[in-house]
């Protein structure tokens, strides 16, 4: 009589083999040079290990060798889809160290720019998310409208992606002629378009099947992983630095903090994260309307720019709401013209770290969906 052990010894155990898939750094839907090492059992993913750093450009090392104002173009290149927000938050951190107040007009322009940037960034996120689940047309719709935001930026400061517009203490240029009118035209044009995205993508049955109940991120896990921005709000946490820690002049505007509500499945699924972005664009439009109405006509945008930036010894941690979440700068100054240490706490870095938690157990197709719903930008993760 043969025992089971003998059978095993003679023939080996029949087992399924795990396959290691290497997704990226060159892959259509890793949104840059991200590499995911995926262990799969058939189509089911058992674990995901992100490998980052393919876009590491030594931002923090650079900062230690540049003066404070020279850092600003480098912040552009970190999150290249939300350069205005990066400029804004970095400049505010340095201003806080220096104790500079900026004029009303500068604050308004900064808010306008940041909110336009948020629309542009969310448009890209929404469009590429459609691409990730296989819908190609929403992508071009979003890019059509993003183009108009970029045109506004180009009109303002000459650059379409990397602006270097918001400076410590002020701005590089005043607003060009008729900017207010063009911006107004844009938001009037743009607001109805949000419904267009909803019609083509958000309420599409297949899209809901693909994203609803997929990659559910519970609120506690999101907080523990330091997720922020739409990723955190998609899980139902009402947390927005613009409302909860008002910086700049955000306390003057009336807007809603959008949270996910589990409409198409569980709370915190990919659909929620996606839809938070879509609705946030509407809120940004609301802020833009108010800001454009309140924008002072006159004023010098460069009057508060310091001649020499030498913050006193000390350190500061300042954070603000970039389109991707809490963007923080931890700056240590030793009283010289160059920062002693700049640490950028990038939202996408923390948002990405949650992927194994919410992605394991889903299928390969879902990994792409989940990754898309996190809306990462590798320039910011790798810095």
């Amino acid at each position: 009589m043969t025992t089971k052990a003998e059978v095993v010894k003679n023939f080996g155990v029949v087992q399924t083999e795990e396959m290691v898939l290497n997704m990226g750094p060159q892959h259509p839907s890793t949104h840059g040079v991200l590499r995911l090492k995926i262990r799969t059992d058939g189509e089911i993913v058992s674990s995901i290990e992100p490998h980052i750093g393919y876009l590491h450009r030594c931002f923090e090392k650079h900062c230690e060798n540049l003066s404070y104002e020279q850092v600003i173009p480098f912040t552009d290149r970190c999150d290249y889809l939300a350069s205005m927000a990066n400029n804004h938050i970095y400049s505010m951190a340095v201003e806080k160290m220096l104790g500079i107040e900026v004029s009303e007009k500068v604050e308004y322009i900064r808010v306008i720019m940041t909110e336009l940037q948020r629309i542009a960034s969310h448009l890209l996120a929404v469009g590429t998310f459609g691409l990730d689940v296989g819908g190609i047309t929403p992508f071009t719709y979003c890019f059509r409208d993003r183009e108009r935001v970029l045109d506004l930026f180009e009109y303002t400061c000459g650059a379409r992606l990397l602006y270097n517009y918001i400076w410590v203490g002020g701005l590089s240029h005043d607003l060009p002629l008729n900017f207010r009118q063009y911006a107004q035209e844009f938001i009037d044009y743009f607001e109805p378009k949000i419904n267009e995205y909803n019609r083509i993508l958000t309420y599409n049955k297949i899209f809901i099947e693909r994203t609803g109940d997929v990659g559910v991120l519970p609120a506690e896990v999101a907080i523990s992983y330091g997720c922020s921005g739409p990723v955190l709000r998609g899980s139902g946490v009402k947390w927005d630095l613009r409302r909860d820690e008002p910086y700049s002049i955000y306390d003057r505007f009336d807007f809603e903090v959008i949270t996910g509500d589990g409409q198409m499945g569980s709370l915190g699924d990919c659909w929620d994260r996606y839809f938070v972005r879509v609705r946030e664009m509407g809120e940004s439009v609301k802020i833009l309307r108010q800001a454009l109405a309140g924008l002072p006509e006159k004023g010098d945008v460069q009057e508060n720019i310091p001649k020499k930036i030498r913050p006193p010894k000390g350190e500061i941690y300042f954070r603000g709401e970039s389109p991707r979440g809490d963007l923080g700068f931890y700056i240590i100054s030793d009283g010289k013209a160059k920062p002693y240490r700049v640490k950028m706490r990038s939202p996408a870095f923390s948002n990405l770290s949650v992927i194994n938690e919410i992605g394991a157990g889903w299928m390969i197709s879902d990994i792409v969906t989940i990754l898309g719903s996190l809306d990462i930008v590798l320039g910011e993760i790798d810095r």
Partner: protein
Amino acid sequence: MTSFTDSLIELLGGLAWVPENAAGIIFVTVSVLVALPVFLFMTLNAMVAVYMERKVSAFMQDRLGPMEVGIFGFKGGKRFWGGIGQTVADAVKLLGKEDTIPGEADRALFIIGPFILFGAAFATFIGIPIGYGLVISDFNIGIFFVIAISSIGVIGVILAGWASNNKWSLYGAMRSAAQMISYELPVGMSLLLVVMVVGSLQFHDIVMWQEQHRWFLFHSPFTALAFLIFFASGVAEVNRTPFDIPEAESELVAGYMTEYSGFRWSIFFLSEYANMAIIALMSAIIFLGGWLSPLGGLFRTFNLEQSWYFLEGPWWGVFWISIKAIALIFVMMWVRWTWPRLRPDQLMYVAWKVFIPFALANIFFVGIWELLLG
């Protein structure tokens, strides 16, 4: 009923200068003469369909599409036919590309893979008529022949995916095999329904029946449902969105064709568009009256007087079947550029838990319908 091949053989056999018993020569000549029009048709179809796909997608995406490349100095300008030479330029580029074979690939199978897929599509055209008597070879098991031959294509896809020695390709091949085998069933079942009603597997008989009665799309609610199931499953069989999981570009890079380039890749491309044409032609013939004029079909459906000239006749037939097929191809493109993609398990769900039960029930109900009303 004569077919192209029969006429050719008769013609060649009757020629005075052809020696007696020269079966080999006649065989080869007939094969070549038969293959040429099919090949030309496939190439032309791919070219036109690619151009159409580009323009349709551009139209749906608020873009212009190809606008620059003219042909023979003719440029359409900023009109619909602008960039008319784009596909020619693409084809030339594709054929001029380096044909790479990965070092670790199984060379023989890597090369043979696309040709099996191509061969299947090619052979399928032999049985499909594009007008009354306009068929390469008229089989008396027409529908069954088409289903049988087109089921071979999947082997080409699997081999291509496996031989590439690339994990993405393997995934694409696995998905593709599962998908094609699953969707063959609803396709077959919805065709079975038509065969039941007509009592013949021949395409000509099916169209004749529709000429005498009415189009199958309007025949009964069950045949209309069968048309939907057939067309949707057909779209799935040719791997187009929302069923394009084997090549899902955002997940599997390019699925089973990841490692292919240049000429071999264009063979895949050609077959894909040929398969689209096959599905569209079959739907048109079986459910939409084939080469019958829609005007005549419409009036006969409602038993109206035949009072008008319905634009019927052999050449009008080719025109009508082309119009129907192009309309169906347009629907495929429309769907592709509008909807996202299903997940593999959802795709299987649709096949096994929606299409197949409905198709089975359909067979039963159409039987009752025919007994009571037929």
